[in-house]
């Protein structure tokens, strides 16, 4: 599993678009952290979701998932390694981009964000294993958050993004609920990852 994690981290760092995206988001994160701790926390969560999604869906978009599964056919282990990679990237991104928050008197926000951001990354990566395509997943999730969670339920129900916001705000129960959503997605991913890989 460590070999997969090392390989995935190396891959992310050497794909120019991925490395560029992380650098740009980190720059925005630093700017946001100067402006507002809450804005930084929100950006960190959204970014973690994005890193999780793109880290997985790129493999299907460019069919490198084939190489991954040829080298490591035990797909559950590959899935766990990819989730661990997402956690490392999300955590690293939040930790670095939020240094200003840490030292500007909002250490509690910093620590709470570092707690929920990896879970958001897990949610994104696990859902990406199920959906396999970035655009439908990101657009679908955005539509879900805006129309279902925000407009219909007014962010008052323990749904994924509402739970994330509450958890980031220090709500322990919401943190458990959010973790539950992420774990549900991971369980779905463990079944979905066994599907045939289309190489056509």
């Amino acid at each position, binding site marked *: 599993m460590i*070999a*997969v994690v*090392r*390989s995935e981290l*190396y*891959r992310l760092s*050497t*794909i*120019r*678009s*991925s490395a560029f995206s992380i650098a740009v988001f980190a720059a925005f994160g630093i700017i946001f952290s100067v402006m507002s701790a809450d804005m930084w926390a929100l950006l960190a969560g959204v970014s973690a979701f994005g890193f999780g999604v793109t880290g997985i869906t*790129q493999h299907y978009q*460019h*069919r*490198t998932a*084939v*190489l*991954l*599964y*040829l*080298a*490591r*056919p*035990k797909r559950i282990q590959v899935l766990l390694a990819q989730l661990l990679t997402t956690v490392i990237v999300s955590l690293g991104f939040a930790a670095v981009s939020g240094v200003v928050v840490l030292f500007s008197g909002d250490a509690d926000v910093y620590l709470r964000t570092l707690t929920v951001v990896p879970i958001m990354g897990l949610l994104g990566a696990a859902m990406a294993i199920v959906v396999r395509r970035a655009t439908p997943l990101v657009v679908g999730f955005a539509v879900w958050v805006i129309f279902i969670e925000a407009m219909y339920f007014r962010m008052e129900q323990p749904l994924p993004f509402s739970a994330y916001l509450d958890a980031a705000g220090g709500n322990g129960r919401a943190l458990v609920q959010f973790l539950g959503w992420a774990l549900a997605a991971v369980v779905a991913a463990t079944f979905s990852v*066994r599907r*045939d*890989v289309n*190489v*056509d």
Partner: protein
Amino acid sequence: MIELIELTKAYGRVRAVDGVTFTAVPGRVTGFLGLNGSGKTTTLRMLLGLSRPTSGQALINKVRFQELDNPARQVGAVLEQGISHPGQSGRAHLTTQALLIGVDRARVDVLLEQVGLAAAAEQRCGDYSLGMRQRLAVATALLGEPQVLILDEPANGLDPEGIAWLRELLRDHARAGGTVLISSHLLAELAQLIDDVVIISEGTVRYAAPLSELYGSASARLRIRGRDPQRLWRAFEEAGATVDTDGYALEVIGLAPEDAGDIAFEAGVPLYELASDAPNLEQIFLNLVAGDAPVPAPVAAPAPDPGSPPAADLFPAPADLIPIPSEPPISAESLISSETLASSETRASSETRASSETRTPSEAAPIEADAAPEAAVTTATTQEGDR
């Protein structure tokens, strides 16, 4: 060793692969041939654990791919048109794979050199040509120094030099005891490379045997020109041969070149040309996949004789064949007219053609009985041009 046993993949009611059974043995190159959509890629995907079979088994070294211990060390695969992330350089791509399978990163540069991509190592894969991507895919497959190589249409996008390079690489791998399974939709493309052939059509195996048997299953045709074609025609028919003409020479099926020479000698007819045409492989292949021809060997014969000589050693590369100058055809009627005969004689005597050397029985070298028909080519001419 690769073993496929009654491998089946069904999508709803459609059976994309239906009971495919064959074996690819070490030390030989096995060609897996079929038209587009015949089930080749689906079969290879099941073999490599990328999709699950509906029934049957696909084994590599006696176990399923998923059960192999560090499979990249045992099996190298080239799929599609070379898989890589377009935003990564060739070197970064190989390093990613090296980290993934636990290979020393120093091997990356060795392979880049081996496949001829050292100069393009820092170039983005997205900027690679199709041929370069195929070379990178081959390098990826070779990273773990596997004993088994599985390649799906690897020649697509390669230029003639690249194809020759790949052919040599795969032959060397087989000579070193490796197992090679290579798919294509063109038999002629693989004819100089493979030892065994498996032909698949509409998801089922139509033919599985050494390639030499496929050659042997095709009737060798002799092309014969002599002073008195009528007398030759009669003499050959009396010897039990089937004779036809293309309007310029006799086409004789059912006789060995030595026998034809002897018959002409006994009939007292000087020969101007005696050549054995190579069987039209592409036509044999198309007949097999279309189901128009009887299957000439037991279908799905699981174990080609590992001891039989590699086909590539039996059949010369096109460069080794002497091209024959084109000549204007003449009608069958004019063939037997005395005027044409005279003109033919004049032309034959005035031309110096390697392919028109008359081979008399006394000059004929003995040809080993187990050699393929091409080995009996006396004037190294082919009319089909399919090699």
